[in-house]
């Protein structure tokens, strides 16, 4: 599925593909401009490029026409952390890019962008998913939860507190994904075994290798969430 997994993908021959002009995060920030404000500026240029693509599939029937959205921007509503957010975006926008680039909700991280690493993990209707590989248009009508919605501002959720106490992060870039995966996992397994914990996090990578700390944190958080330790 992706270039980062070993079997049949990563470390293979060079990529003859085109540059990704739909991916503003690949762009290089200019001096004196914040990274995020630059990205927002780059987004305008991306839209202009889109307008130039022609030859899209013409509708086969008038009835079908009304059911087709895009390729241009359309209005979407995303329910994130209990709050409705309206954006105008193309159907190709992923949920992750909608969160980060359109809504400044940056807890979910963009790392592989190919459903491979788990850094973008958010919850949809309580289940862990990869925000990078779900189209924003398909996330409409669902309850989305990001790490920003896990606890009140300034307070730590028991999972977050357990991650701190067990040194379950080094560089920390994968951590929001792990914490959200943990939330989904512990909701389904309130009293997990160590084996279940190991299997339950097969969808998240930590390249610093803090898996031991993560497993301890999750087991500890399970106890805290059951009220064993506040």
């Amino acid at each position, binding site marked *: *599925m*992706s*270039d980062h*997994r*070993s*079997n*049949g*993908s*990563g470390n*293979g*021959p*060079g*990529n*003859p*593909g*085109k540059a*990704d002009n*739909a991916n503003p995060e690949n762009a290089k920030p200019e001096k004196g401009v914040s990274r995020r404000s630059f990205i927002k500026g780059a987004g305008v240029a991306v839209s202009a490029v*889109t307008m130039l*693509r022609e*030859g*899209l*599939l013409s509708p*086969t*029937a008038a*009835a*079908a026409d009304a*059911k*087709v*959205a*895009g*390729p241009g921007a359309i209005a979407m509503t995303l329910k994130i952390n209990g709050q409705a957010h309206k954006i105008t975006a193309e*159907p*190709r926008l*992923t949920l992750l890019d909608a969160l980060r680039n359109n809504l400044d909700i940056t807890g979910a991280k963009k790392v592989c*962008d*190919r*459903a491979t*690493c*788990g850094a973008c*993990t958010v919850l*949809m209707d309580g*289940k*862990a*998913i990869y925000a990078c*590989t*779900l*189209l924003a*248009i*398909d996330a409409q009508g669902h309850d989305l939860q990001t790490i920003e919605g896990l606890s009140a501002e300034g307070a730590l959720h028991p999972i977050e507190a357990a991650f701190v106490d067990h040194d379950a992060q080094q560089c920390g870039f994968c951590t929001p994904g792990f914490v959200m*995966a943990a939330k*989904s*996992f512990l909701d389904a397994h309130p009293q997990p075994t160590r084996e279940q914990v*190991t*299997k*339950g996090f*097969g*969808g*998240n*990578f930590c390249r610093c290798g803090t898996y031991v700390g993560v497993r301890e944190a999750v087991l500890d958080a399970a106890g805290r969430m059951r009220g064993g330790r506040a």
Partner: protein
Amino acid sequence: MEAFEYARPASGKEALELLGGSFADSEILAGGMDLISLMKNYVLSPKRLVNIKGISEFSGIRSTQQGLAIGATTTLQELIEHKTIAADYPGLHQAADAIPSPQIRNMATAGGNLCQRPRCWYFRNGFGLLARDAKGNPLVPGGDNRYHAIFGNDGPAYFVNGSSLAPALIALSAQARIFSANGWREVAVADFFRTPRNDNERENVLQPKEILGEIVIPSASKGLRTSTYEVREREALDWPLATASVALKMSGNKIEKASVVLGYVAPIPWQAKEAGDWLAGKTLNEETAAKAGEAAVQGAKPLSGNKYKVQLARVCVKRALLAAGRA
């Protein structure tokens, strides 16, 4: 990825109206686990995506007169949690449950698992389905083929099929039900897959205006002893290197009939008929299971860098058989 039109039809009929006449026109979207990444890499750039997730005819798991029907848009997690499947078809349950990422299990669908594109890093890096250089010569035989096929690799395809569910379904004699303007047609999952002869063909029998709607496990397969055994490089987020799914009709400790299907070893799920035939009439034990593994890899023709997969396939067959016997 390139911009595209998007549609989310409410019925199968409406979906057919929205699908284009060629694969370049439109792609069917369900879980999107494979498709979205291929589009991000510009391996696929369809002009339209037709999302079939909201179509009730293609969703859910239900008992029918024919057997157990699994809707194509059933997520892997729904399949794993289904009690009848876990109890009656452990080989299928194991195949789904072994897919390591909870996030993928929550998003990916049964139909998408069958329809995912080949596991081949040449294909996924833009060298075309059959991975050829500018002069039309195949890149795989002389290239890095450690994850490529050891069966059915006489060319022009050298990739492996990446479906974990297909071998288990084939062992159960499951049928794929395909929806088109002509209504439903059925094809055995074993015949659903084919090896493409050129870059314009696909790895299965679906035509551009056809939808894999559901998969049916026939009632007659209930009572078979099934198991799936796989070997993988790592336990997290990766595809197996080889798998074996077996279904046995047993009489006491004696095998009346056996089906042995290998995964990740050929451009299609690979039916090890020699092993199945050899097992008929044998008593299942460590020795016969090992010999069946030998029979299964008799015809293997490894490429320059994947001889190790012959041993993996051999061991998968043996262990799957022994596990099925214990079940």
